[in-house]
Structures are given as C-alpha cells and as structure tokens.
C-alpha cells in the first residue's frame, strides 16, 4: 500500500513538474484569443512578424538539410564501418559521441574561425548552420543508426546480396537501408527535434532560426513568442510519438 502511495506521489510530482510550465504557457498564450489563429494564418503571420516567419522557414530548411546531410554522411559510413572496418568502430563511435561532451559555447569558439571561411566562400546565410548542426546531431543519430544495424546480420545480408550480383550501392540501398528503416527514421526525427530547438550556436554565430526569432519576439510580443514556443514543443512531441509508433509498428511486423 505504502509502495503504491509512493509511486503515485512520485508520478504526481513529476507530472506537475513537467506539465505546469506547459499549462502556464498555454494559459498565457490564450489570453489574447487572436494569438493561436494567427499562428495558423501564414500570410498574416509573415506580414505581422516577418522576423518570426523568417526564423520558422530558416529552421525548417535547416532541419531538412541537416537531416539529409546527416543521413548521406552517416548511414553509408556506419554500414561501411560495420562491413569493412570493424576495428575502426570504437574510434568512429568515440568521434561521433564527442559533440555530446563539448559544451555548445566551446563548440562555437572552435566553429567561429571555420565560419569565417564559410562566410567568405558560401556567404552568411543562416542555412550554413547546417554544417555545425550535422556535427551536433552526430551522437544521437549515430546511436540510433548503430542500434538498427546491430539488430540485423549486416555482413551475411550484404554477402548474400553481393553473391547474387549486387554492387555495394545496391547492397546499401536495396538490402541494408530497408532493414534499418525505423533506425533511420529515429535518427531523422531526433535530428529535426534537435535542430528546431537549437539556440546557442545560431545566436552566437549571428544567424537566425526559430529559437533566435522567438528570443527576439519575446522582447516585443511575449504572447506570440510563448505560443510559438509551445507550438514548437508540441511539434517535437508529435515527432517523438510518431517515432515510437513507427518503432512499435516495425517491431510488430518482425514478430512471427
């Protein structure tokens, strides 16, 4: 009995801890009934809050491009390391986990001179943050993809495909990728969630994205800024729910 009471107490405290700020945000952002309809009216939003609209577009583009770049770089690398260079795996794992241990501010100090060159060659567009974000998402994306690869016998599947006449490209695209689909989806969703929530690097490198725009907006229109924050948070929640649903559907499919 005491155990049940303890469990409920912990759950209640945790629930209040996590939900209270959200409820407060929802309450605050609905004080002006115009706020939420505005978020769904893109032409009006971009006319009234051009900086916010720019931030949203920049973040969406950054999320999409970071996901593509991450997948293009990481998936073949992870597969190749498993198939051909298993001895290098601990090193690759270490390198991929490194961004997790380096504080964002330190990363920016290192990235600043690099971005001086990026500015020089590519320009100062906020889309260039994609390079930094690809490094930032490595720990999460690598873990997700590596876990997916551990769940299948990549070596045997690749050898079977090669003996049937597949080149390496076909092996990766037609044999390995379809079998780590949910892992790739996880990596993609985590990337999107992380990029949409990123503030430090964008702000310190003087580029814009959703979080930077929200920060600016907070100074002039607190209600809209809180509403947008809540909407971004809900979007991330939805992504994570879709992710766990995708995972359970694929697990169900594999059961005999």
């Amino acid at each position: 009995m005491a155990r049940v009471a303890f469990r409920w107490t912990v759950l209640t405290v945790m629930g209040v801890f996590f939900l209270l700020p959200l409820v407060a945000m929802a309450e605050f952002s609905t004080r002006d009934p115009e706020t939420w309809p505005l978020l769904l009216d893109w032409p009006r939003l971009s006319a009234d809050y051009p900086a916010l609209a720019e931030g949203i577009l920049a973040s969406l583009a950054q999320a999409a491009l970071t996901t593509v770049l991450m997948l293009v770089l990481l998936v073949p690398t992870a597969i190749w390391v498993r198939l051909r260079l298993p001895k290098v795996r601990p090193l690759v794992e270490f390198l991929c986990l490194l961004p997790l241990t380096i504080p964002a501010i330190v990363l920016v100090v290192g990235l600043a001179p690099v971005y001086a060159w990026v500015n020089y060659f590519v320009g100062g567009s906020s889309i260039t943050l994609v390079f930094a974000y690809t490094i930032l998402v490595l720990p999460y994306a690598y873990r997700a993809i590596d876990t997916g690869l551990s769940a299948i016998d990549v070596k045997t599947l690749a050898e079977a495909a090669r003996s049937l006449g597949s080149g390496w490209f076909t092996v990766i695209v037609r044999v390995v990728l379809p079998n780590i689909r949910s892992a790739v989806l996880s990596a993609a969703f985590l990337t999107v969630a992380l990029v949409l929530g990123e503030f430090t690097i964008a702000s310190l490198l003087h580029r814009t994205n959703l979080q930077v725009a929200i920060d600016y907006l907070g100074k002039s229109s607190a209600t809209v800024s809180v509403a947008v924050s809540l909407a971004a948070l809900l979007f991330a929640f939805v992504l994570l729910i879709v992710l766990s649903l995708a995972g359970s559907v694929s697990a169900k499919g594999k059961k005999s």
Partner: protein
Amino acid sequence: MTGVAVHLDGLRRTFGTVHALDDLDLSIAPGELIALLGPSGCGKTTALRILAGLEEATAGRVLVGGKDITALPASKRDMGMVFQAYSLFPHLNARQNVEFGLRLRKRSLQRAVEMLELVGLSGFEDRYPNQLSGGQQQRVALARALAIEPQVLLLDEPLSALDAKVRVQLRDEIRRIQTEVGTTTLFVTHDQEEALAIADRVGVMRSGRLEQLAAPAEVYLRPATPFVADFVGISNRLPGTVDGETVEVLGTRLPLVGAHSGGPVTALVRPEAITVTPDADSTAKVVTSSFLGSLSRVTVTVGDHLVVAQVPSGDLPELAQGAPVRLTIAPLAVVVE
C-alpha cells in the same frame, strides 16, 4: 544446364602468422558435388569464401570454366551461395527474395515461382522470413541461389543450424536438386555423415591442406591418414604388428592401407568392424553398453585397452557390466600409425 570446371590453384591465405590455407589445390569436375570436410579452423570455409570472392587469397588462382577470376569481385562471379546463418532479406517475402538476383539480371521473374516449386515451397511465396521455419528459410535461400542459374553453387554449412530430422531431409533434397540442375557445387561441412552422404567426392582438410580427396566410400573404407581415419569416425587405436601387407590386431590379421616398414604400430579400427559375442572363457570384459536405437555401442576392456564396438541392437544379447565377451574384427583394410 551443364556445370563448369572449377580449379583452385595453389591458394594461400594468411592471417598474420596463421595459414588458413596452405597452397590448396582442388579441381572440381563440371556438375560434380565436392564436400570439404574438416574441423573448425581447417580452412574449408576460407576456401569457399575465396571461391565466392568474399575474401581475397594471399596467393594462388581461382579458375572457373578455364577463366581466371581471382581478381573479379563477388558480384561479378556468377555464383549462388547458401550461408550457414539465415541470410534471407527480412523485408522481402519468399518470392521477392528469390526474384532479387533475377531483377538485377533483368531476367523473367517467372523463374522465382518455378524455383520455389523445385524446393517444395509452392504456396509459401508470400511468407516473410520470420514466418518460415529454419528449414524453409534455407530452402528459399537455395532457390534464390539457384534462380540466377549460377556457374557454381556454394553451400557453406547450410544445414548446421537445423534440427536433426530436417537436416537429413534437406540434405537429401539438396543432392536431388543439384543432380537435377547439374550445377558444379562446393559444399562445406564439419559433419562427416553429411559429407559422405551428399558428395561425389569428399575432401578432408586439416590446417589449410587437403589430407585426402576421394569418393565417400574410399574415404570411409580406406582413409589415407590417421587424421582422416579419426575424423570419419574411427575411434579405436589398438596395438598391432605389421607383417608384409597385413597387420595383426588382437589376434586377427587385417589388410593394410598403404605400405609400412613393419614392426609394432597403432592400428585404427572402426567400431562397426568389431562384433561382440558372449564367451565365458574370454578375458575381455564389458565396461558399458549403450542403446542408440538401431545400433548399440559396447565398450570392452582387453588387457590395458578399451575397445569400442558398434553392433546392430537386434544382434546383441543383453550384456551386463563385467560380462566376458569375445571380440571379432571384420577383415577390412586398416590405417596404421
């Protein structure tokens, strides 16, 4: 379809200081099924993987149909392979798995259905690998390997993950299908019974070399070396004396495999060559008697030696521990060392 000749010429493969293959020469005739038999680490799988192009040889050549394919990648070798581990693509059903190689070659997909029929899996086309038993998965893998009409079929211990009954069934079926399609085949196994049952010729390997390559009956009845004799199930090592072309073991003269200079030797005698009959005057005594179904295994002490005999259970009287028995050895040729 007619098979092609395969020739492994002086194949060597070294891993650091270990010689997995040590100048291996092996010729497979068109349409022939050769089983490479040997303990773990003897190099049999390495030889097969080099033939498949999945591993590179340190030295030597691989010739298929007279063409040197040593430098050709696995994807261009035109070989069908069945692996020890289940290797069906989990995201494709049985039919799609068999179609995989056909699509790459832009051939008619109708053949996939025919191949599934050949391996006895009509009606299972839409099942995914996780809905098939181990034996069924290996059948689909065999159909997939054969669908592309490969020049050579490579079987890397395809039955070792299956239970005993399915193993025997599928073994016989592999032989039937291989004979039917006539593909030159290399079969790797560590199971002597499997190798002897399925192959035209059996190659017994040890430390990267072939100890003997001969027809199954030859390997079984006239093993070339003590290692081969030991590996194909001869467990009795009995003292004997060589005299000319015969050797005397436990008072029986037996023909000799190969030549020997004479004198005292250890003879390797097969358990099924020994019969056991109760004899109150004998000094040989029963130690254990185990019933194995159609056969029984009796261990007997003769002087300081333990002798194992394997006799049909129906011919065997009840033998208590310590019962005196007489041993008779059938006059089959034996190997000595």
